[in-house]
């Protein structure tokens, strides 16, 4: 090592502190890289513009435009005074005991103002269409996303009405989605019933749940629990359906589906096809073909996807007369051309493959 080389004559360079007294050159510097300054100024201008864009973007969030529009509507309908009492800002429903936050009301401001119902009010600001339902489920206790799905935290339409058909559990169950799956009454947001049934699972019939009520009836009549485990009802011919709605998409076998028809490729469609004819998705399926009609298929697909594992405190305790008891009694009613339970035992497979 040559640590002591600092004094060596050969050693030159910036180790040595410049002796300022030696420098007599009061000459102007030849500034070689003056052009750097030009670039600096140019880039500073660019930076300024970019900062202005960022400032603009931050200062004009999407929701503020809706609130401005809302103020206009207030002025038109109730006069200037009412409009002045409205304060801008992010609004949210905070359900303290479960630490849930829904900010939908930042845009859907009129949701709890009954006077704002009617076609002339833009949909965003309209009062909630079914006040009876809301009486049972007040906003301050239920928020919005338990029923509607979507991203409660988000404050842009695209993010709040989260619709990317990926693994997102609580996708926004919109009108458009219902239309895509061919629900005739898509305007009433039928898909929301899936979320209703996560809480209302134990009840046999719940007012307002057209599809789910029908599906539960079928589930009991067709004795699905003769083959499928469902809570206390044990059976092991088919897979356990207790938490079917939690089954992740990559555990489904999509490989046999060659033609989705009009349906978009998804787990939901998988169930559509499966209920239409089990062999469409599982060629050697032991599940009989029940020849369900379209509305029944939709109902059942919604029902099985609503079988989720949610904290017990959300689950509504049913009235003793109204308990959902899909018991298996006797033998499975064979669907036409299908098999009986004996067939399963002796290993005879469904011939309808």
């Amino acid at each position, binding site marked *: 090592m040559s640590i002591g080389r600092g004094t060596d004559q050969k050693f030159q360079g910036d*180790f040595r502190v410049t002796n*300022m007294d030696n*420098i007599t050159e009061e000459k102007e510097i030849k500034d070689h*890289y003056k052009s750097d*300054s030009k670039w600096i100024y140019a*880039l500073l201008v660019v930076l300024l513009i970019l900062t202005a864009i960022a400032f603009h973007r931050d200062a004009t969030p999407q929701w503020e435009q809706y609130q401005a529009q809302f103020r206009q509507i207030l002025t038109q309908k109730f006069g200037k005074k009412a409009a002045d009492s409205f304060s801008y800002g992010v609004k949210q429903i905070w359900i303290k005991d479960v630490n849930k936050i829904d*900010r939908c009301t930042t845009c859907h401001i009129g949701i709890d103002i009954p006077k704002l119902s009617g076609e002339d009010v833009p949909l965003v600001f309209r009062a909630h269409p079914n006040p009876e339902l809301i009486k049972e489920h007040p906003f301050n206790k239920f928020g919005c996303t338990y029923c509607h799905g979507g991203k409660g935290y988000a404050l842009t339409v695209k993010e709040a009405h989260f619709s990317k058909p990926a693994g997102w559990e609580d996708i926004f169950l919109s009108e458009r989605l219902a239309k895509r799956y061919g629900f005739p009454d898509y305007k009433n947001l039928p898909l929301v019933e899936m979320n209703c049934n996560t809480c209302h699972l134990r009840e046999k019939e719940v007012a307002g749940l057209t599809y789910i009520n029908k599906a539960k009836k079928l589930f009991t009549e067709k004795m699905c629990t003769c083959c499928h485990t469902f809570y206390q009802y044990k059976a092991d011919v088919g897979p356990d359906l207790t938490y079917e709605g939690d089954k992740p*998409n990559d555990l489904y076998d*999509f490989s046999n589906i060659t033609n989705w028809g009009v349906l978009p490729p998804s*787990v939901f469609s998988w169930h559509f096809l499966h209920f239409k004819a089990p062999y469409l998705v599982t060629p050697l399926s032991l599940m009989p073909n029940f020849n369900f009609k379209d509305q029944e298929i939709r109902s059942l697909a919604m029902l099985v996807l609503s079988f989720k594992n949610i904290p017990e405190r959300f689950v509504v305790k049913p009235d003793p007369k109204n308990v959902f008891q899909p018991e298996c009694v006797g033998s499975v009613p064979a669907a036409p051309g299908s098999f009986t339970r004996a067939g399963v035992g002796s290993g005879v497979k469904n011939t309808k493959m």
Partner: protein
Amino acid sequence: MRKTIKSLWLKLTWAFNPDTIKEAYRARIKNFFLHWFPPKVTKRSFSWSYSFWLGTISAVLFLITLVTGVALMFIYIPSIRQAYWSIEDIEFITHYGWLLRYSHRWAGHLMVVVVFLHMMRVFYTASYRETPGRDSHRYVNWVVGVILLLATLFLAFTGYLLPWDQLSMWAVTVATAIGRTTPVIGETLYRMLVGGTTIDQATLIRFYTFHCIAVPVVVILLISYHLWRIRKDGGLASTVHHDVPLDESISEAEDTSRVLAVPAVPRRIFLVTIATWVVVLVATLLFRAPLLEPATQAWTPNPAKAPWYFLWLQELISYTTIKIGHFVINGGFVGGVFVPAVLFIALAVWPSIDNSPNDSTGIWFHRTRLWQNVLFTVICLTIVFQILFSYYCRGPYWHVYWPWNRPEIPGRF
């Protein structure tokens, strides 16, 4: 009044804008911000086309992540219950939260790229060489650099987990599973890093502390040493500029290969800083940082991919499982641990393997280093190719597809 303001302004700025040569030298000594610069720098090391200023750009990117990161720390909550939602708050509620988050994200990713490019530049110019007849330790700086490269990767990796969404949790699951296959110490290392046997709260708080405190402190210390080292080694490695005497006996007019460091160097650094910032800001305004659904163990994205800078390892794993008879050597170990370990060790000791003559120092692609450059390029390109291939062509179940018709597993709706 105007006079005092003007004199105050001059007092603050004269050093950055000297008029005479004497003032330029004086500035270096009197001004805190300039005192670490040498009196002069060679035009060669100053030029864009030689170093591309990649080291400085790395440092600026690090600075940007540091500033935005500290700001993010005021809002982010390192708890698996709240981490995801605090990120959502940063995006939707906090003023400029989106700006901070995206800037931090893009500057961080860019830093990985630029540090790697900087390493390539140093390699191709054989700048780890000592200056003949001079007490330099560039080898040390090279090794410090290799550690900085690893630290940068670790910094990026630990940050990746923090949003606690499906992307981050599964990427970290994949990457830690790779490290776990190391024989003997793998399991212990894994448990130390992860804090248990699954990616959970214990992992999050560890990664958080690594990401926000431990690693940045180490990186700051190493960068400081790295830069100090360059100064002590007499600037960028080269055999050319040592022909010229480096002391003041040469007059300014004769000294054609060097320029006064002040004002050129601080000005150039300022320029590089702004330019880098502009690039990050443009990326921030154009691209959102990804945020998928909250992390859940119940559902695995298919395929689950490691962060992009580790994808080449994940790619290697899929074809390094070696079968000899009924003897199977684990691909996770060979591709995920053994190969990168060998590569990094080779990188660290390369200066002593490189036996080309001294003339090659500071010259791009010197012909005496042909075989090394070819080898190095092949390895770098392989890594880059594997990353791109893995990122764009790997689909569900790690099957290979064309990027434009890579299927996705159908979602729920």
